[in-house]
């Protein structure tokens, strides 16, 4: 089942790539050539300066314990949603809801790929390719060449409930490569939820095309799988007056790199991407990397990046965020915030918040802070009788609040806050 990372074009091309129809075969071959020409990332690459790609590209993944949830309901369980389940990176039809819903067209990637003509042809690997300049993302090209499964979703109208991708991990040595393609048609709206441990190693690409006036809301929870080694790429193209909002909560995980590549192509569009990460390196390593690249290529658009990390016991946090404003993208409003709270002296944080701006009528800014917990606030809480550990957790949640506020749906954001709170209190014992 597991697919080792191939190093050369020949290896990739000769490989038993998933059977597919003409368009998909072509897209995969193109991706294989892309990868061959750019090569796999190495530690010397500027873009991998702070995160070692080694374990993501080794021939086989290191084994990961399957997390026993002991019957406790998973995140989002109270939310009415259309469930699509993947076990070790393979779609599980029995565990999933029927592939249908109001205003929705859903197919398994493998089904769509067998067809000779499919709308996904214009997107699969296409947004990924666009996201390869100016920075190369070989692991995404690798995914496009090799993805074994995934869903293609077309949203044409009002969708009554969120689409929820649920990942399950059963095999200690699984190596999952998933590729989803989503198109939200003009004026339509979709909420996408993602959660669960996907595999021992997980490479995910999601390509999202948001048409004029459409909305895409994304909330992802990465947690529980302590041995997680994951690299995810979210490529999106945002058209005029459209809205893209993505939030990711991350707790645990040996190595997680979430890349988000946003291209704003239509005027007056909005794109927000946020993340809240809680890392404790006590029991196993924790390394979390948020890498974001937002390109403004239209007039009067707004972008936000809000990333918060709380780190202790040797946990490492990385943020690489960039706003690129192209020459004609006047009236751009871009803001980037990356903050981390280091709870002890072993934790570390590295950040590169970049601005590259070629239009003059813009307001772009970023703020980044790193430091320990606010002693004043801690004392105030303690003077009201709140013991230090609880007070600390309260301040940690408060610190993360900015990022969580980026979730529009109140039930979902309450759910996320609740999960983070629960994680904190479990650690408190």
């Amino acid at each position: 089942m597991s697919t080792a990372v191939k190093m050369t074009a020949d290896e990739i091309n000769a490989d038993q790539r998933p059977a597919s129809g003409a368009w998909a075969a072509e897209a995969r071959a193109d991706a294989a050539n892309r990868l061959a020409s750019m090569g796999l990332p190495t530690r010397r690459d500027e873009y991998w300066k702070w995160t070692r790609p080694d374990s993501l590209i080794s021939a086989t993944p290191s084994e990961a314990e399957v997390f026993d949830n002991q019957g406790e309901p998973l995140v989002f369980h109270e939310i009415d949603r259309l469930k699509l389940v993947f076990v070790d990176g393979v779609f599980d039809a029995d565990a999933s809801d029927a592939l249908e819903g109001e205003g929705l067209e859903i197919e398994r990637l493998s089904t769509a790929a067998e067809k000779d003509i499919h709308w996904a042809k214009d997107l699969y690997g296409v947004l990924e390719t666009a996201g390869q300049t100016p920075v190369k993302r070989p692991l995404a090209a690798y995914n496009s060449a090799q993805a074994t499964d995934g869903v293609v979703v077309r949203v044409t109208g009002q969708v009554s409930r969120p689409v929820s991708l649920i990942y399950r991990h059963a095999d200690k040595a699984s190596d999952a490569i998933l590729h989803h393609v989503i198109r939200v048609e003009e004026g339509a709206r979709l909420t996408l939820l993602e959660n669960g441990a996907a595999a021992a190693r997980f490479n995910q690409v999601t390509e999202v095309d948001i048409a004029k006036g459409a909305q895409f809301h994304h909330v992802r929870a990465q947690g529980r799988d302590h041995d997680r080694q994951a690299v995810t790429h979210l490529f999106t193209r945002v058209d005029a007056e459209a809205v893209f909002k993505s939030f990711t909560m991350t707790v645990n995980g040996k190595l997680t790199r979430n890349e988000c590549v946003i291209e704003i192509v239509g005027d007056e569009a909005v794109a927000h991407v946020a993340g809240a990460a809680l890392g404790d390196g006590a029991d196993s390593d924790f390394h979390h990397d948020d890498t974001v690249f937002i390109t403004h290529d239209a007039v009067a658009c707004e972008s936000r990046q809000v990333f918060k990390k709380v780190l202790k016991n040797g946990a490492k946090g990385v943020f690489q965020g960039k706003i690129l404003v192209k020459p004609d993208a006047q009236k751009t409003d871009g803001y980037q915030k990356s903050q981390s709270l280091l709870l002890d002296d072993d934790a570390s944080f590295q950040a590169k918040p970049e601005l590259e701006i070629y239009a003059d009528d813009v307001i772009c800014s970023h703020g980044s802070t790193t430091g320990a917990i606010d002693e004043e606030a801690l004392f105030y809480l303690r003077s009201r009788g709140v013991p230090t550990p609880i007070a600390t957790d309260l301040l940690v949640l408060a610190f993360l609040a900015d990022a969580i506020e980026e979730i529009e749906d109140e039930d979902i954001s309450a759910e996320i806050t609740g999960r983070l709170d629960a994680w904190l209190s479990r650690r408190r014992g």
Partner: protein
Amino acid sequence: MAGLDELNVKEGVEEETVEAVKSLAGTYKYGWETDIEMEYAPKGLNPDIVRLISEKNEEPKWMTEWRLEAFARWEKLDEPSWALLNYPEIDFQDQYYYARPKSMEEKPKSLDEVDPKLLETYQKLGIPLKEQMILAGVEGAEDMPAEGRKVAVDAVFDSVSVGTTFQEELKKAGVIFCSISEAIREHPELVKKYLGSVVPVSDNYYATLNSAVFSDGSFVYIPPNTRCPMELSTYFRINAENTGQFERTLIIADKGSYVSYLEGCTAPQRDTAQLHAAVVEIIIEEDAEVKYSTVQNWFPGDEEGKGGIYNFVTKRADCRGDRSKVMWTQVETGSAVTWKYPSCILRGAESQGEFYSIAITNNYQQADTGTKMVHLGRDTKSRIVSKGISAGKAQNTYRGLVSMHPKAKNSRNYTQCDSLLIGDKCGAHTVPYIEVKNNSSRVEHEATTSKVDEEQMFYCRQRGMDEEEAVALIVNGFAKEVLQALPMEFAMEAQQLVAISLEGSVG
């Protein structure tokens, strides 16, 4: 309409600035050339040229060896390409690496013996090589003594230092201020001990090149517990065509000492680009303090982007001692290409580094500049204030690193970098790197990019200023925090430069 009175011109814009700006005329003021007979080393770069430079400077053998080793290393290095700079490939063999006025063959024994043509050159640049007071004629110079203030000058013309003023007086205070070539001959023990100790020979491509071929520059040693009795300055002038200038400056501030050092640079207007690659090393011992200010005004190239200086500079201060302090202030208005990151290694406990920068790019200029603050010792502090102004078709990048090492407990950094865009053909970029490896330290970084505020522009113009004046005024206000960090004479000059540099940027 909201009352005009409610509008405030950006804080920091003063009446005198308006006056200064108004009184300006003309573009690059220093573009003329001195017609003087020169002597050149053959074109190109090879070990023989390196030996020749060493020989011309009458250097001891160890120095020649040092240079040759650097050259050998340089040959193995590749030119870096990570900066946001775009310029035609430099042919390092198509350059002269040594050029000196014929009249300098015999080293003049005193300033009186220096070729009058050279003295005239500096006079014309506004840097008289006379041991005289700089008179308190500068507006608002209340803190100057009535009789004026002394500034010692080392004047470097192409590859050689033509003279240093006030040497005797400084000697009385124990201060050594001379050209680096003289220091290599007269104070080899100091040079041997410190040269390359802050910027190692193999530090980077341009520094390695410099280590092989530097021809002159300044040397400063301030003995323990000494406050340097006057400001020291070096004025660099490139005059010869097709000639690179490779200067080397070494400043040592011994325990408890203080010095303020100024650096100025200009070059004639030519339509071929010229290379300048400098290295500045500063060593700061316990309780010592160094202020280093630069007004960089190399020829920036013309409106079409032809000519100008390619300026690749490695500047670094090593705060070795506890409570040592360094402050870099730079006003970068010149050069076609600037690649420069004055840095601070904060090794001593409670040491402090500051970096104040204004970088202005207009027409086709490109600047990639910033700083590195490397916190190694406990309770260290750093502050970065960077103001980038981009106009015309120019590109302006701030690139910086703030690094808190595990042992740098209780340290602080505050960074503010702001960019201003004038016109829609230019670019402003910010590339900060932040690395924090302990939790008792606090790092704060803020950056903004915007254009000149329309309300402020309107306010100024309603008060009778034309667009260009208004922009210069607002830009000066924008850069005020940095201008204030400069010594008085420089501050005035810098304000005027801001206006000149932006000429033709609006309308």
